[in-house]
C-alpha cells in the first residue's frame, strides 16, 4: 500500500515539473512583484470610502525602467509598491499612464535607481491561435515559474471596463495561485507578447491583452500626453439578410448597416449617417458580419480595425453606400463619442462628487453609481436613472451637461416629509436649469434667504427648503451624520 502511494506521489510530482521550468536568473532582470492597496469609493455614501484591501501581481519591467501591469491591479489605489524578487528591497511607485478601457497601466518607481540593473523585457510580436507561449510568474521566494501556454483564440472580445471590445487572446495555461491577481506577463522567446488579465482555475483558461494593445498604449503614453484608444461612435448590424440588403440597397457584396451614428464621433463627423452601409475602412473591406481580413488573424471584427490599429488624430477613410450610391468620406479618429457624454461609464480613482443641502443629497449620475446596485443594476436601480444612462444618446442628452439627481435624503427637521425620496433627477432650482453640481451650488450660495425650490423630473416634481435654514442647520447636520464636508465638487 505504502509503496503504491509513493509511486503516485512521484508521478504527480513529475507532471508538475514538466510544465514548469525554474529560471532563477531571468527573473532578476524582468519581473517585479507589485503590491497595491486599494480603497474604492462608496457611491451610496459619497463622503466616505469602502473597506481597504491589498492586491498583488507581477509587473513586467520594460526597457527604460518602467513597469507594466493591468489597470485593474491599480484601480482605486491608495498606494502602489514594487518589490524586487527574492529580496526585501521595496520602492513606492507612481502611475505614469493608465487606461481602464484597455486595462493597462504603466508604473514608475519613485526612486530612479531602484530598477537599476534590470535589463527589461523587449516587446515581442503578435501571436495567433495555435501559437505556444509562456506565462511567467514569481514564486514567493523570488524564483520564476514559466508556465507553458497555448493561444486558443485571437479576436475582439470584452474587457472588464469597456463596452465595445478590443482584441483579446484566449489562453490555455495551468497557473498556480501565487498572488491576489492574475496580472502576469505572457512571453514568447523571452519577449513580451501580452498581459494576462483574467484566469479561471476550473477551466484553466484565461484572457490576455495582446501585445498590439500594449504597443499602442506605450506609444501613446511616450509623449507624456495620453490620449487613449479611438472609437468610431456607431452602432451597427450585420448585413447577411438578403431582404435587408435589398431594402437598404446594398448592391455590392459585404458591408454592415449603421443603425446609429453619434454626430460627435469619428464616423459622425466624417459625415456617416444612420442607414448607411459601411463597406470599407482605411482600405480594409468589411464583410457582411463586420469582419475585415487581417494579415495575421484572418477575418477579424471591425473593432480591432478602428480601435486598436489607429491612433487618435490619425486620418480615417470610409467607403459607404447610401441609397445604393457609393461614396468616400474621410475624417480623423478621436474618442469624443466616448468622452463627451452626459453620463460617463468609467469612474475610477475619482471621488464621487456630491452636494448636501439641508439633508437632500445630490450627486451626478455615473455608470459607477449605477453599478453600485450590483449585477442586476438595470433592474434594481431607479428606472429613470437606468433609462437616462442606457439610452442617453437616443434621448439626446446634452453631452455638456451632467445629470444631477437626488440620491437620498438624510432625515432632519428640514427634510420632514421628504425622507422616503431617492433616485430623482433634478432639472432646475429656483427657476434656473441645473447642468452640474456647480450650477446647483452656485444657486444655493446665491440664495441667502427665501425658498430653495428644487424642480424634479418625476413625481413629486418639486421640493422646497428654506435657504436660511439650510445655511444655519448645515453644521448640525454634518455633525449628526458624521459628514465632515457637505459638498465635494
Amino acid at each position, binding site marked *: 500500500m505504502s509503496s503504491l502511494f509513493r509511486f503516485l506521489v512521484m508521478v504527480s510530482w513529475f507532471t508538475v515539473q514538466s510544465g514548469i521550468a525554474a529560471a532563477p536568473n531571468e527573473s532578476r532582470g524582468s519581473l517585479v512583484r507589485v503590491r497595491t492597496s486599494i480603497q474604492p469609493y462608496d457611491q451610496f455614501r459619497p463622503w466616505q470610502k469602502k473597506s481597504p484591501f491589498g492586491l498583488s501581481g507581477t509587473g513586467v519591467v520594460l526597457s527604460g525602467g518602467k513597469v507594466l501591469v493591468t489597470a485593474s491591479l491599480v484601480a482605486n489605489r491608495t498606494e502602489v509598491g514594487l518589490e524586487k524578487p527574492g529580496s526585501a528591497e521595496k520602492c513606492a511607485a507612481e502611475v505614469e499612464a493608465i487606461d481602464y478601457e484597455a486595462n493597462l497601466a504603466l508604473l514608475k518607481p519613485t526612486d530612479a535607481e531602484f530598477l537599476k540593473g534590470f535589463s527589461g523585457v523587449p516587446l515581442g510580436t503578435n501571436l495567433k491561435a495555435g501559437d505556444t507561449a509562456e506565462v511567467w510568474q514569481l514564486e514567493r521566494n523570488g524564483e520564476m515559474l514559466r508556465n507553458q501556454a497555448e493561444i486558443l483564440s485571437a479576436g475582439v472580445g470584452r474587457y472588464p471596463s469597456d463596452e465595445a471590445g478590443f482584441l483579446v487572446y484566449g489562453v490555455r495555461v495551468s497557473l498556480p495561485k501565487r498572488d491576489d491577481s492574475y496580472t502576469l506577463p505572457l512571453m514568447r522567446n523571452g519577449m513580451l507578447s501580452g498581459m494576462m488579465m483574467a484566469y479561471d482555475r476550473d477551466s484553466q483558461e484565461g484572457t490576455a491583452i495582446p501585445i498590439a494593445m500594449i504597443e499602442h498604449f506605450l506609444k501613446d503614453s511616450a509623449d507624456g500626453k495620453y490620449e487613449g484608444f479611438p472609437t468610431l461612435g456607431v452602432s451597427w448590424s450585420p448585413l447577411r439578410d438578403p431582404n*435587408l440588403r*435589398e431594402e437598404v440597397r446594398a448592391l455590392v457584396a459585404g458591408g454592415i448597416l449603421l*443603425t*446609429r451614428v453619434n454626430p460627435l464621433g469619428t464616423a459622425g463627423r466624417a459625415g456617416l449617417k444612420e442607414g448607411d452601409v459601411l463597406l470599407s475602412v482605411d482600405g480594409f473591406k468589411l464583410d457582411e458580419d463586420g469582419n475585415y481580413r487581417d494579415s495575421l488573424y484572418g477575418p477579424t471584427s471591425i473593432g480591432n480595425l478602428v480601435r486598436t490599429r489607429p491612433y487618435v488624430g490619425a486620418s480615417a477613410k470610409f467607403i459607404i453606400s447610401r441609397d445604393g450610391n457609393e461614396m468616400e468620406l474621410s475624417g480623423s479618429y478621436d474618442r469624443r463619442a466616448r468622452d463627451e457624454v452626459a453620463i460617463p461609464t468609467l469612474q475610477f480613482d475619482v471621488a464621487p462628487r456630491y452636494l448636501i443641502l439641508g439633508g437632500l443629497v445630490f450627486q451626478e449620475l455615473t455608470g459607477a453609481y449605477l453599478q453600485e446596485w450590483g449585477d442586476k443594476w438595470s433592474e434594481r436601480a431607479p428606472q429613470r436613472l437606468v433609462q437616462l444612462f442606457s439610452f442617453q444618446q437616443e434621448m439626446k442628452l446634452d453631452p455638456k451637461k451632467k445629470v444631477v439627481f437626488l440620491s437620498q435624503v438624510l432625515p432632519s427637521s428640514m427634510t420632514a*416629509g*421628504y425622507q422616503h425620496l431617492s433616485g430623482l433627477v433634478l432639472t432646475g432650482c429656483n427657476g434656473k436649469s441645473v447642468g452640474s453640481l456647480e450650477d446647483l451650488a452656485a444657486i444655493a450660495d446665491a440664495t441667502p434667504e427665501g425658498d430653495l425650490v428644487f424642480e424634479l423630473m418625476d413625481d413629486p*416634481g418639486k421640493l*422646497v427648503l428654506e435657504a436660511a435654514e439650510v445655511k444655519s442647520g448645515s453644521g448640525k447636520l454634518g455633525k449628526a451624520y458624521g459628514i465632515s464636508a457637505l459638498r465635494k465638487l
Partner: protein
Amino acid sequence: MRFCRRVFIFALCATLGVGCGKDGQLKEAKKNVVMVEVTSQTWDYRLPWNPGTVSSARGAGFVIRGKRVLTNAHVISGARYITVQREADPRKYPAKVKFVAHDCDLAIVEVEDPEFFKGTTSLPLGDIPELESVVSVYGFPIGGDRLSVTRGVVSRIDYNAYTHSGRESHLAIQIDAAINPGNSGGPVMQADKVVGVAFQGFRGDVAQNVGYMIPTPVIRRFLKDVEDGKYDHYVDIAIRWMTLENPAMRKHLGRPNDGLGVVVTDIFSEGSSDGILQKGDVLLSIDGHPIESDGSVRLQGQPVQLEEIVERKFAGDPVELELWRDRKLERATIKLRPAEMFSMYEILYEPPPRYVLYGGLVFQPLTANLMGVLAGSADLRLRQTYSLFGQDQIYRETPEPVILSSVLPDPLNVYLRGLAGQVVREINGRRIRTLADVEPALRQGGERTVIRFEGDQRPAVLKKTDVDQATPRIMAQYGIPEASRAEVDGRRLAKGSFSRTESK
C-alpha cells in the same frame, strides 16, 4: 408583478366564533357553505394560439340572497367546468359564472337546478368586525373533504394588495385563523353574519398565522355594482399626491401649520382628474372630510387613507374636493371613471391572448401576462416600456405597445431570430399604437414589409410573397389554428383599447 409578491392565494376555512351564537351559526354555515370544484384553463402567453393548460382546483363559496353563490374570482378564473356541492346534499350541481370582479377578487356563481337551493337560507352580511374580536372561517381546505372550521381573531384592518389582479389594493382584514391552500371563497363569520370572504395569506415560510379576508364594504360594493347586470371596474381619481408635512413646503404653498392638506404632484392624463386638478394644488377636504397632512381622513372615527372615500364609489359618481390653488380656496367636482391607463399592469384571466402571426414573427400586445413569461429574458427597453408606461404616460402616444414576442424558426426568418423581444415602432411606414394597427399596416407598402423597432435595432424585412408561401407551412408545423387573434369579443378584453375620445 405576480411573481414578485410573496403573498399567495388559497382558500381559507373557518372556525366557529365562541360565544356568538355558536350553534346557530354552525347550523347556518352547514346549510349555506358550498364546495366549489373548478376545472380551468390557463392561457399560455408563450404559445398564445394554444387553448392552455387544464387544471382542477377546489374552493369554497356560500349562498347569499337571491339564490346566488359568492366566491373568489381566483377560484373560478378561466373556468371551463364548475360544480358546486352542499354539505347536506351529496350531488354535484353544474354551475356557471354570472359576474366576476378580478380587481376585488370576487365572483358570483349561478346554479340552474333549483334542487340545489333546497334547504339553503342565504347568509346575511355584517359589518367590519372589531379588532381582537373572534371570527370563524368556513371552507374546504386540504386535509379532508368535509366542511372545515377554524377560528381566530381580527388582527389588523388596513389597505392591502389584492394579489389576484396584480395591481389593486383595497381594504382587507387580517386574521390569525389557520389558513390552508385550496379553499378560497369561504365565509368568515361572526354572530351569525358574514364579516368577510377568506382570500389570501402568506406562505408558511414567510409569515405564520397571517390570513386575509375581503371585508363587507368591498363585498357590498361588488353586489351593488352588478345590480345593473354587469360589473364595472373600480374607479380612481388618478392622481399622485405627497404628504404635506414639510414646514418649508407648507410655507411655500401659503398654508398655515394646521396639519391639514396634501399636495397634488401628478395628474394622469385621461384620468378622472385630468383637466380639473393641477400640480401643486393642495387638497384640503374630500366629500366634506378634512384631509390630514399625512393623507388620512376620518371615517366613523377611524383614520383611513383618503382613497377610501373613492373606493366606495362607482363610475360617474362625483367627488367634491376643497382645494388651495394659487393661494386661493377653490372647490372642484370630479366625475369618477376607471383608471384604464393602468390596466396594462392587471393580470388577465379570461380573454384569450391576442396575437398576430406573420412569417413566423409573433406580435403580441404588452400585458402583465406577457411580461410574466418574458420576465427573465426581457431586454432593458422592453422592461422600461413596461415599468414607465404609466409614469411617463406612454399610453397617450401608444395605448398598447406591440412586442415581437417570439420568432418561430423557419427558413424565411433565419436572420430575424435575434429580434425577439423588441418593441415595434412602425410597420411599412405606419406607426403602431395598438395590436389592431398591425394587420392593416402589414397590408401596406410594396413588395417588402419593413418592421422597425424602438431604439437602434436593424429593421426586419420580409418579402410579402415569401410570407404568403410560408404562412401555411409555419402554421402546420407549429400547430397554429389561426394566423391572428387581434380582436376578442366582450368588454375589457381588448386591453388598452381605450382612446382619448372614448374616455373623455
